[in-house]
């Protein structure tokens, strides 16, 4: 595989092609969007038209939801990117770590918010079975901010605990094995996690948060406070990650290992500790992302994380595997594509569009679209 590495590094000509293609498509879409704002519509072929009707407000709202989901993809992507580069495998159970965080975290949050309203089991299992509804329990940033905060902490810490336990039992005995063996093992882990969650929490898609009074006017703009919470937490965690990687010894060791594992071994970085730190950070962020994702959409079922996995992969690949800034930027791009593309394509296809972009990047620019801009 040695020559693969080599061929990846110098291919300016495909780059030019890709840039050209992106520029042409992007330009056409931008023109179309402007036409839509101006409510110009010119019929082309097969009922497809140039331009159409899109209000600025609906565009802004798509942009906003794109940023919101994009931050989730990005936040979760940081962990996936770190495990990919430091542990050298594509972790197919990463999505289910999000689910782990979502359910454990919201179990705790509901317990705090709904204490006394229903029995402990019902609340801890995130409303499995019958009992008071989400509005009654009132788990929202407005009525129970403390519960939401505690939930986030529980989500992070329990997901970390689960990830460390898995690393010990599954991945540690396989450290010297190739990426494909680990990838297959991670599929096994994904199945176990997902269906343990289903076993404990049930398979029903259930409402969790209360949305009463969550939509508020902030500075004259109507804002969903849950979205806002998500954005604030996600951005602060990203900044914290940046500081950790750039300023601390641990962060430097992790970056070194992401760059070159053998070299890091030689220079005496305690790799086993770096591996654990990777799981702690990666899983912690994954748990919180899952938790925040539920905060934003209000409902959860046992396979939400699995459904997110490909989007997270897309974000990481787009940004370049191993770069946390890339993961964040990639997440935002995928989030925006996912939402803003709705202007042009039916909602049946926006997920497919995100995956298609991921595939194209993997094929034609596997080092990510931001490669060469910065590394972390």
């Amino acid at each position: 595989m040695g020559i693969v590495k080599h061929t990846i590094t110098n291919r300016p000509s495909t780059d030019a092609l890709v840039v050209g293609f992106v520029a042409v498509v992007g330009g056409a879409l931008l023109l179309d969007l402007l036409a839509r704002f101006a409510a110009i519509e010119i019929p082309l072929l097969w009922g497809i038209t140039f331009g159409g009707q899109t209000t600025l407000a609906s565009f802004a709202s798509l942009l906003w939801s794109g940023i919101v989901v994009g931050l989730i993809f990005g936040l979760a992507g940081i962990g996936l990117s770190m495990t990919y580069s430091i542990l050298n495998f594509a972790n197919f159970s990463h999505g289910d770590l999000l689910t782990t965080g979502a359910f454990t975290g919201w179990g705790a949050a509901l317990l705090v918010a709904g204490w006394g309203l229903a029995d402990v089991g019902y609340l801890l299992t995130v409303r499995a079975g019958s009992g008071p509804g989400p509005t009654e329990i009132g788990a929202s940033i407005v009525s129970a901010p403390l519960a939401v905060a505690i939930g986030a902490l529980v989500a992070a810490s329990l997901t970390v605990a689960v990830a460390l336990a898995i690393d010990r039992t599954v991945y540690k005995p396989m450290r010297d094995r190739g990426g494909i063996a680990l990838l297959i093992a991670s599929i096994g882990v994904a199945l176990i996690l997902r269906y343990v969650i289903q076993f404990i929490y049930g398979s029903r898609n259930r409402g969790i948060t209360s949305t009463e009074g969550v939509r508020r006017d902030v500075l004259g703009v109507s804002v969903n406070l849950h979205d806002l919470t998500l954005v604030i937490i996600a951005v602060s965690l990203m900044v914290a990650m940046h500081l950790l990687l750039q300023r601390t010894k641990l962060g430097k060791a992790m970056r070194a290992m992401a760059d070159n594992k053998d070299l890091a071994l030689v220079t005496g970085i305690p790799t086993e500790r770096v591996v654990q730190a990777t799981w702690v950070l990666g899983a912690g962020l994954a748990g919180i992302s899952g938790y925040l994702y539920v905060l934003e959409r209000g409902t959860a079922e046992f396979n939400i994380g699995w459904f997110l996995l490909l989007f997270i992969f897309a974000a990481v690949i787009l940004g370049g595997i191993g770069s946390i800034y890339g993961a964040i930027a990639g997440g935002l791009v995928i989030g925006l594509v996912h939402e803003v593309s709705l202007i042009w394509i039916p909602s049946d296809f926006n997920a497919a569009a995100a995956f298609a972009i991921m595939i194209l990047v993997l094929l034609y620019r596997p080092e990510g679209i931001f490669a060469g801009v910065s590394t972390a």
Partner: protein
Amino acid sequence: MSEPDISAEETDGRAAATDEANVEPESAGAPADTPLRVANLRKTFGGIVAVDDASFAVEAGSLTGLIGPNGAGKSTTFNCITGAHKPDSGRVEFQGERITGLRPDQIANRGLVRTFQIARSLEEMTVLENLMLAPKGQIGETLWRSVVPGARGKVVAQEEELRERVWETLEFFEIDHLAGQTAGSLSGGQRKLLEMARAMMTEPDMLLLDEPLAGVNPTLEHKLLARIHDLQDEGYTFLLVEHDMDVIMQHCERVIVMHQGSVLAEGEPSVIRNDERVIEAYLGEDV
């Protein structure tokens, strides 16, 4: 893997255009005498210049030695010649045709075959399979012939012929007792033999051997060298990387010395032995 790297073609094209003037006149006259010609070859890895403007030619029917200290760029030169790496610039000619930028399989099919310094055996395949793989022009390598019952007769006949040759080769290289074993279970020296045997099975015109004798026992080493001389008489050409100076001095007609990516000296062993620069490059080593 074998992606058509257009950019390399382009740079090659440009390099070729500038080289044309100084290479063509010589080569045009005597491609038959010098099947392999390398001109201004350059290859960098990030900041490291592995091969730096190397030029040399190998005479037909010769056993030419390619020597140089560790890291001199010998293996990288091999990689550039055989298409495993794309050179940054420069030109490689084989039997009068430009082969720069071709895929490894295209180059091998023109009769220029190489072995690897660190033996690359197909580990989970048996020694027999390794050797059966190598020959060119196997009709059974087309999908339909391997499947359709009627077409299989010819395939079987050819396989039987090849089997004959494979066993001869195995016996010659003294690895016939390992025939049924997987290549992965072989020792380092045995793998070297396997690689050479495999390369021979392709019936090449010219062989590039990257330290084929490392780890091979002395008796067999002599046998191999004798065999190489036999093949030379049959018209084969060899380019041999080897660190054992005795072997180089005794067996090679010509020696090319590389140092820090460039060709430092080129000539007959006796001349090379006394070359000041070569002695300096090897500094203290017994040349």
